[in-house]
């Protein structure tokens, strides 16, 4: 009974982790840029942006039990902050193109500070974190949780999309912000820039992953699990679960914000369709497919689902929604801990046999 546990631990020990992590890093940072043509590398960069959001979902949902259906909101805040800077930068003192089209004559006050790259980059993190802190404080302090919290985050995503679409002159409406040219002195569409952006996304994801892993393994991470499994009991240990949840939610929001900001130069657009109820849910689905209880599972799920979506919508566009729905039903029914859970079981079983 104890023997397999020990050998599983050997598999999961620090040396094994370092080996696997380095292998994945070499694959991502060296092999992928060499082997993939620019278009495919761009796709991978996009999936890795989603993986950053998924990492945050894994943290909030898998570890903290907060099912957040509104990560698109934070992704969008980060994306629009970046997009606004790029638009102003491209316009070089004039009005951004879409404002001219919708008849806006003077740069709105909201936009002005985003001309400053330092301010814009700060807002990429500050805005999502501030919204998450505010919402988390108001909601978790009142012990609103579980499905209620999920519903509220979803309502927020729905509200934000309607707001963005409606404020045409301010946000570009349905089209969002697009047609970027210059990215910090480089041609954003050039293969060179895109390769650099890919590397940037991969490194940011790796760093955030390590950070999240450290968080999970710290005492705070234990506390987070305890809050997930018995919030009321945690209170009687003298901790305020609302604080623990709010902070974790804010971290996951910050990650989504960073992902949104990276997404904009990589894909060249940020629009309401990318951050509403459906995209937010799709990422949660991806995390469930990959395995919500393991951070690596969340990342894996986002990449796998990204590829699946691209492949099937190219090959079998009509079947994709059926497939996605069916896959989801199957995963929830047969493998609620996702690919990562299945893999862990497999390792455990093999170890038990030897």
């Amino acid at each position: 009974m104890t023997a397999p546990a020990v050998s599983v631990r050997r598999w999961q020990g620090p040396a094994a982790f370092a080996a696997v992590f380095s292998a994945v890093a070499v694959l991502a940072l060296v092999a992928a840029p060499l082997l993939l043509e620019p278009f495919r590398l761009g796709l991978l960069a996009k999936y890795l942006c989603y993986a950053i959001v998924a990492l945050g979902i894994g943290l909030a949902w898998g570890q903290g039990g907060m099912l957040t259906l509104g990560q698109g909101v934070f992704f969008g805040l980060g994306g629009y902050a970046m997009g606004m800077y790029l638009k102003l930068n491209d316009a070089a003192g004039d009005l951004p193109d879409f404002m001219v089209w919708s008849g806006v004559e003077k740069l709105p006050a909201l936009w002005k500070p985003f001309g400053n790259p330092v301010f814009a980059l700060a807002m990429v993190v500050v805005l999502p974190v501030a919204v998450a802190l505010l919402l988390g404080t108001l909601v978790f302090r009142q012990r609103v949780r579980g499905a209620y919290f999920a519903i509220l985050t979803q309502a927020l995503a729905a509200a934000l999309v309607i707001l963005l679409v409606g404020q045409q002159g301010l946000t570009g409406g349905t089209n969002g912000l697009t047609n970027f040219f210059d990215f910090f002195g480089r041609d954003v569409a050039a293969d060179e820039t895109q390769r650099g952006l890919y590397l940037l996304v991969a490194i940011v994801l790796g760093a955030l992953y390590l950070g999240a892993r450290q968080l999970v393994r710290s005492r705070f991470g234990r506390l987070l699990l305890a809050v997930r499994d018995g919030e009321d009991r945690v209170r009687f240990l003298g901790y305020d679960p609302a604080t623990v949840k709010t902070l974790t939610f804010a971290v996951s929001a910050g990650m989504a914000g960073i992902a949104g900001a990276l997404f904009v130069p990589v894909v060249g657009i940020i629009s309401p369709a990318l951050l509403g109820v459906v995209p937010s849910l799709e990422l949660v689905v991806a995390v469930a497919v990959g395995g919500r209880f393991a951070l690596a599972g969340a990342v894996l799920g986002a990449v796998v689902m990204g590829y699946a979506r691209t492949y099937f919508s190219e090959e079998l566009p009509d079947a994709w929604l059926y497939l996605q729905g069916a896959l989801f039903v199957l995963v929830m029914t047969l493998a609620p801990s996702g690919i990562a859970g299945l893999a862990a079981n497999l390792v455990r079983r093999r170890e038990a046999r030897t």
Partner: protein
Amino acid sequence: MTEALLEIRSLEVAFGGFRALDGVDLTVGRGELRFLIGPNGAGKTTLIDVITGLTRPTGGSVRFEGHDLLGRREHEIVRLGVGRTFQTSVVFEELTVLENLDLAASFRRPLWSLLRRRRGVSEEVTAALETTGLASLAGSKAGVLSHGQRQWLEIGMLIVQRPRLLLLDEPVAGMSSGERERTGELLTEVARDHTVIVVEHDMDFLRRYASQVTVLHEGRVLTEGSVEQVRADPRVQEIYLGRAREGAEDAVR
């Protein structure tokens, strides 16, 4: 006469029209081991719920070491030094026994210091592992523990928090006789350097370990005293035995 640690005055709790507590006065001195008994619905658990902030009373006062406890949130009351267990023990099944105890012991650390990983095991946690007899299970997930072991782990988690007042809600309910014995020993040990209030139904357990007893009945304090005094009180016999007799008559009819 010991100095009062907990002072409860004319406490009232109503659920809708039902008065769960109807003017309870209770004083518990420092270092006491106090048993709280009474038939079902007497208000024992409600009383503990009010002290620990889980239930808001409709009137009265609860003072602990000069602090007014009413209106404070649960975790704030714990931070003042009041700890409790529940009838159905709740431990964190996904964490190991050691992690459960460590989490309980870390509650006074500043939040940012929790971001570091745990290195080693603190003295008080080691001591608690010994006291509760769970040292050999330190690395196991709490989910695999038996009912009795869970209760001991809960008591251990209380001890490492060094509360000035412990409230145990039916610690031996559902336990085997061996487990009861072990819990009794643990209780005596804990009571040596803590103030403890125990809610208990079990009369045998009461006879063996109780010194001071408070009897609650229909939301009021019926009587207080030593085990012998309380047992000799005809009113106590009435509520415990009288009900049994009525029940027997019902059954005959």
